[in-house]
């Protein structure tokens, strides 16, 4: 998690709409998911699926901007999960994202927002931990 300004988020839960808009966030580009989660050690290989050999990579600094929008209520649910200790109102919605990244010698610009790219998205208002009881 990274702190963002309060006004980076807009949300209207009743309407099933929200937006996360961040510009120029400084990040490290770890090159690939394995190096990110092994903190640059890569994977040794020889472990079979789903662990291919991935060489260690030193992260580089980058800036990212992203505009994520949730809209279009698909389903709603009231959840109270005593095992995990959370409860609240949740919506399954559509979502889109546009994002870009820049680093020395490389830049990326995503395609325009495309609702058909959404796999699964959720909005909600919840209480967990000490607020669960």
């Amino acid at each position, binding site marked *: 998690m990274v702190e963002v300004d309060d006004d980076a988020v807009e949300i209207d839960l009743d309407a099933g709409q929200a937006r996360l808009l961040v510009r120029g*966030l400084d990040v*490290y580009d770890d090159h690939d998911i394995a190096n990110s*989660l092994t903190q640059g050690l890569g994977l040794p290989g020889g472990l079979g699926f789903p662990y291919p050999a991935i060489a260690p990579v030193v992260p580089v600094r980058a800036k990212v901007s992203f505009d994520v929008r949730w809209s279009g209520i698909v389903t709603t649910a009231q959840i109270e999960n005593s095992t995990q200790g959370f409860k609240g109102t949740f919506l399954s919605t559509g979502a889109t994202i546009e994002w870009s990244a820049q680093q020395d010698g*490389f830049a990326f*610009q995503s*395609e325009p927002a495309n609702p058909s790219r959404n796999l699964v998205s959720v909005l909600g208002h*919840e209480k967990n931990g000490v607020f669960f009881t």
Partner: protein
Amino acid sequence: MNEQRFQQKWVSRRSLIRGVAGAALGTSLLRPNPAYADQGDDDGRRCRGPLLKPIPGGVVPFTPFGVPVHHNPLNPAVALPDISDPSEVTDFDGFVSLTHIRGGGTGTSTAATMSLAYQADMGFGQGKFIGIDGRQHRGTFAFV
């Protein structure tokens, strides 16, 4: 921006771009890194320091090599009533969101322009929480 804030801004990101045979896979999960709230706590004072307490559990990709990630990724095959806690923060009361999206785009290097694919697992939290200092705070956080 002071040095502390500057360093806080340099959050690590996994798999921003993965260039493999002309296809990139960019997901968007931060390496676990305490977030810092400075929106002010309930008594109006600005707070500093790593405050958020992560949810118990989550995932440990690439076990035993990967670091734990206190995050429950959405799964399109799981019905909404059966999802795991979408918040990454515990002792939390507020709005949460997650999205799992795939898409494409264009990468431009000094040598070439290429079509790339990405996958994003992102969200946000906004509300009140009990920090590791035992006090109540408010904040807005992005899961990137």
